[in-house]
């Protein structure tokens, strides 16, 4: 009786939250209750939520703890950032300023070959999805075929992310070094500083989040979703049922990576700068924390976690900046020790308690009727 009605109820709840994000927030902005800066901030946090949804499919459902989602996010961010830099101020012989300021040569600087495709929006957009996907395919192929699992996979992916961070920091790599990509002016011909463009970016982020969520939900609800859970429970047993677990793991890893890239692409124009900072260990861990706080294996929990953690970050750092790290540490320890199912787990427990109370009341009423 309950499963379908429950699904319907959570479905309705999900759609209404989505509509609040899509329509409610812009309406609040137009009415003048919230400034465009808040809309912009929410947009950035929703870009984080996109990465978190992908990570939840990977970690919560399949049990693969990946610490290179931050790397995939950064690849997306760089793809979009390089497009934006192309359309910012130019120096010398038409070299983007962000690149010009960090180069050692003063004259004779030409645009490196790999910068050229990023001049065009559709190509940059496709590369922002394809690059993380290809990198994930390679890591997945070698990692999963040789059966690197659990904490070893986490260490491997963290090492790759740190290596990538070091590479992106080098000025010689012509990726703008530690300065990162700066001087974003227009996107597809629109001024980035204009409030309506900011609002447009916000709306695109909400739509993309909905899209990423639907893709992950579809995968999780398909037969393949059950195979992913089976991989988490007992990968060896699955092998003895004739499955090739590494194929499924590669698939879900690539999906999560591309979703991570999508998040990065939406983050860069809203942030106005994109630096190698996002490839540091801190961000890899943070993304895991978002999912853990929200509740693993629920998808909606990942969105909730990313928003709640970042909003509290924003709130606390504006009131008492010194205390944020304590709060963050408490959150993580609390989630590990007290609430392993995160906010969604707490919510479910509450709902169940309320539900029980309601159903016993109903029963009492029914029995009263019987007596009468």
């Amino acid at each position, binding site marked *: 009786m309950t499963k379908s009605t429950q699904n319907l109820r959570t479905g309705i709840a999900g759609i209404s939250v989505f509509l609040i994000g899509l329509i409610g927030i812009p309406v609040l902005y137009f009415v003048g209750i919230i400034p465009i800066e808040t809309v912009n901030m929410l947009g950035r946090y929703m870009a984080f939520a996109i990465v978190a949804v992908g990570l939840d499919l990977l970690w919560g459902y399949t049990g693969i703890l990946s610490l290179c989602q931050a790397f995939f996010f950064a690849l997306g961010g760089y793809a979009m950032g390089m497009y934006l830099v192309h359309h910012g101020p130019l120096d010398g012989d038409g070299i983007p300023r962000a690149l010009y300021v960090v180069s050692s040569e003063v004259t004779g600087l030409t645009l490196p070959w790999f910068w050229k495709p990023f001049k065009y929006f559709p190509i940059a957009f496709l590369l922002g999805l394809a690059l993380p996907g290809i990198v994930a395919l390679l890591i997945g192929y070698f990692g999963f075929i040789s059966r690197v699992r659990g904490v070893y996979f986490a260490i491997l992916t963290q090492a790759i992310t740190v290596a990538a961070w070091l590479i992106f920091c080098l000025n010689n790599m012509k990726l703008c070094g530690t300065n990162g990509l700066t001087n974003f002016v227009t996107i597809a011909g629109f001024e980035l500083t204009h409030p309506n463009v900011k609002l447009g970016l916000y709306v695109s982020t909400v739509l993309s989040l909905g899209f990423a969520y639907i893709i992950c939900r579809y995968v999780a609800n398909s037969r393949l979703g059950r195979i992913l859970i089976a991989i988490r*429970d007992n990968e060896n047993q699955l092998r003895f*049922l004739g499955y090739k677990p590494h194929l499924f793991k590669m698939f879900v890893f690539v999906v999560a990576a591309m979703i991570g890239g999508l998040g990065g692409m939406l983050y860069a124009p809203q942030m106005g700068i994109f630096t190698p900072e996002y490839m540091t260990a801190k961000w890899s861990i943070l993304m895991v924390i978002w999912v853990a706080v929200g509740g693993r294996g629920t998808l909606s929990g990942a969105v909730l976690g990313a928003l709640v953690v970042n909003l509290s970050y924003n709130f606390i750092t504006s009131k008492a900046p010194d205390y944020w790290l304590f709060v963050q540490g408490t959150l993580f320890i609390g989630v590990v020790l007290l609430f392993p199912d995160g906010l969604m787990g707490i919510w479910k427990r509450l709902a169940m308690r309320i539900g029980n109370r309601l159903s016993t009341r109903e029963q009492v009423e029914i029995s009263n009727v019987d007596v009468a």
Partner: protein
Amino acid sequence: MKHTQRIEDYKNDSPKFSRLWSERYLLFLEEITAVFDGFKALDIEALGIEHNELRVIIGPNGAGKTTLCDVVSGKTRPTTGSVYFDDAEITHESETEIVLLGIGRKFQTPTVFDSLTTYENMELALPGHQKLWPNLFGRAPAVERDRILEILERVGLAEELNREAKYLSHGQRQWLAISVLILSNPKLLLVDEPAAGLTDAETALTAELLLELKTDHTLIVIEHDMDFVRRLDSFVTVLNEGQVMAEGTLSKLQENEEVIEAYLGR
């Protein structure tokens, strides 16, 4: 003696000498050794399992029973020797390939997927649905639902259909593991200690079921429980220190001094 006869037969029928081995045998192990850190866990000269046979393998702890299953199912590579199955050599195939060729296995501890329901556990075992893309886009095959229900009905799990496997009792988990194996419909079933931790009534039902399966499958059953072995009333191979010590019916083996010494008598 019957068992000496069989061992003679193995030598004559070995795939190395005779192309006709597969007419009689479904599985044949030839000169198999498995060495771990200098310890010889398995040392089998020749061992054949005939078509539609239910072979019971007994032996003391550490005799190599589970290692034998590991070698056949591809979990462990033999150090030397060859494994033949269904007219082909499978020594170097991967676990997944071996499963697809038709060897199914139930492990010593019942392995089921804890977070999936009884029905979902069964659904994953359906043969012919192991590819990536069809699982993403395909719908759950409705025709096979009846067959799943039929098997679960037989083992008394029909009422636990939508229960997550982690909430099942030990006996029910054993049943589910066996049901999964039956559903995947392999030619050869490796069943490792199916009666471990079961009540007497459950043990009896297990024996009945395995004997039923014999009509259209070949089975290797590893078991400690002598009552259970007696119920199966089949040809028995005794392993000891990795070697085949004797073969024959249980009643014959119970007269064998060497077997009593090593295993049966205490």
